């Protein structure tokens, strides 16, 4: 059984992405007790799945690593991975929370040596790489995963593969008897940081995502460019493994569209501008990027970044939302539309099309526990909007479409609000 110490002065943080980690760290570093609950077997969320951040083009292995070090050094944070909040009752200053833990089948003795993985033959879709590749059913989610501990996929439990993995483990870290368990904990305040998901691109039917192999999403492109990704960092298009030297980016794929996502997802323009660097980096002057856009929204202080990309002769901009995509015989996706500058019709083939899909809040459609739903409401896009009289605070992309930088700011704000609630509880008891 997992044991957790939690009181009504504990802050519960739901979601272990960049926002949740930040909120947990900020609160813990002021001396509060924090329980951090994450659904995946690892922390870092979608930030860990990026190749690089804008605007400084550094790798998450750097930025996230700093947070992981703060986390490891802080005894006040208890981390629960493969855990989901299933029920919340009570009021601000006194919540009772049920957390369901899924079995990892690997205990804390794991040294991440990888022997179990070698012993297992079953392969499953690689979720960390947006299912672009396969991994063994005994796997380390990614190289810098925290905790550095392997996971056994439930599909092999009860098979010879699971026994083989257990036999291969020299440190007795594999526990095939682990069961799903439910914990009940107390909390004074809750930070809800469940993040976002990429908009389901197959819903934008004229773009034929899912049907044409060379039409991919921006999050998938991050994995293609990453040396830890399925192609080891080579930008190869999925249909035939050809180097994708002529890449088209389609902005507002789903965003700013009443038929899909009403809101501007904010990060996608910067993400595509950033991704043109990947093409340039991989192929030099042979790498050509074309950005199809309605208008470029280089948010905040990033106009400069945009201007630099614009000055690159290998990047062209077409002011037009692409109307539809067809496929040439050689597998090239062909983009059709009308250029707003001059109203010229075009029909352009590219090697690869990247849909800059927007952010959909992960809370949309999620069964929000009762006490939580009293304190919050969703805006017209499904993001959380707080009403103020509650001990539950949204953070990061659960509340709005944000980039990493803004998600961190939002998380710090949420941590401060949560701290105020538990401080009041503490004073009432003193």
């Amino acid at each position, binding site marked *: 059984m997992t044991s957790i110490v939690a009181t009504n002065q504990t802050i519960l943080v739901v979601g272990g992405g960049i926002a949740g980690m930040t909120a947990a760290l900020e609160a813990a570093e002021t001396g509060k007790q924090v329980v951090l609950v994450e659904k995946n077997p690892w922390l870092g969320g979608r930030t860990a799945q990026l190749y690089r951040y804008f605007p400084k083009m550094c790798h998450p292995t750097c930025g996230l690593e700093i947070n992981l070090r703060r986390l490891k050094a802080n005894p006040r944070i208890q981390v629960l991975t493969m855990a989901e909040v299933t029920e919340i009752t009570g009021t601000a200053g006194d919540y009772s929370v049920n957390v369901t833990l899924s079995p990892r089948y690997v205990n804390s003795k794991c040294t991440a040596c990888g022997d179990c993985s070698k012993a297992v033959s079953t392969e499953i879709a690689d979720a960390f790489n947006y299912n672009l590749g396969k991994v063994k059913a005994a796997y380390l989610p990614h190289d810098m995963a925290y905790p550095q501990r392997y996971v056994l996929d439930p599909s092999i439990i009860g098979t010879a593969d699971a026994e083989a993995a257990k036999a291969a483990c020299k440190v007795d870290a594999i526990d095939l008897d682990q069961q799903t368990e439910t914990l009940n904990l107390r909390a004074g305040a809750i930070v809800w940081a469940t993040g976002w998901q990429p908009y389901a691109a197959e819903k934008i039917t004229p773009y034929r995502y899912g049907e044409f192999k060379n039409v991919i999403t921006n999050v998938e492109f991050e994995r293609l460019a990453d040396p830890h990704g399925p192609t080891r960092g080579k930008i190869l298009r999925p249909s035939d493994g050809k180097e994708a030297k002529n890449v088209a980016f389609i902005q507002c794929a789903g965003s*700013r*569209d009443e*038929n899909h996502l009403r809101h501007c997802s904010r990060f996608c323009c910067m993400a595509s501008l950033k991704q043109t660097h990947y093409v340039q980096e991989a192929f030099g002057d042979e790498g050509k990027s074309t950005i199809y856009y309605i208008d470029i929204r280089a948010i905040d202080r990033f106009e400069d970044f945009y201007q630099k990309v614009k000055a690159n002769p290998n990047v062209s901009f077409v002011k*037009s*939302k692409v*109307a*539809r995509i067809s496929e040439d015989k050689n597998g090239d996706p062909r983009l059709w539309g*009308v250029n707003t500058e001059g*109203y010229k*019709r075009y029909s352009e083939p590219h090697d690869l099309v990247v849909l800059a899909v927007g952010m959909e809040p992960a809370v949309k459609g999620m069964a929000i526990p009762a006490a939580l739903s009293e304190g919050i409401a969703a805006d017209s896009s499904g993001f959380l909007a707080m009403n103020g009289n509650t001990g539950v605070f949204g953070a990061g992309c659960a509340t709005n479409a944000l980039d990493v930088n803004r998600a961190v700011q939002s998380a710090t704000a949420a941590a401060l609000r949560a701290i105020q609630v538990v401080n009041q509880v503490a004073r009432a008891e003193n």
Partner: protein
Amino acid sequence: MSANNTAMAVRYKNNFLKELEDQAEMGEWIKMCMQCGVCAGSCPTNFHPGWDHPPQEIFMMVRAGRREEVLTSNSMWMCTSCYNCYVRCPRKLPITHIMHGIANYAHRLGVAPKLQPTRNFGKIFWNNAAKTGRVNEVMLTVDLYFRNAEGKFDLMAGIKKALEMQSIAIGLVKAGRLNPLELFGGHKCKDQKGIQAMLKKARELEETRKALKAA
């Protein structure tokens, strides 16, 4: 140019967008366009050489006040009412209906391209149906095809077309869809006067509404 056209041009001097908002069906939507180009790219007449301006461009021209060019353009009449633009528009503009609204307005002002086939057919069809409340198929084809390139009555052109299309005509007759005797009158609705009074009243109401907006 009709007197009405001149009057409207004077009334809405320099504000063509406002003019269409008041006077054209669905005109109030035009200002919502964000110029993304999905309508233009989705249009089946996209690569048609005879197509002056895609919807997106028409909307921009309206906002730029290019009244003469818009109203005399063939663009709105090229619309096939496939509704691709309507369902794909990210701002949910009823583009198909806006196109029809502008076309109708241009027609009422008497500035629409006279022999544009869609407009020509629309006019003949309306006059035909509004008379008796029922469409007289024979008279419709006579009106449509017995004309030369300038739109004047032309017996030879009609006979030529009739020979060209005789197998279709015979098929229609056999299927009971076309009665040659309609040439001498044809079927009517029971209350012909009632239909006409109704159409007259509808037109009156529309005129009153538009006049109020123009006032």
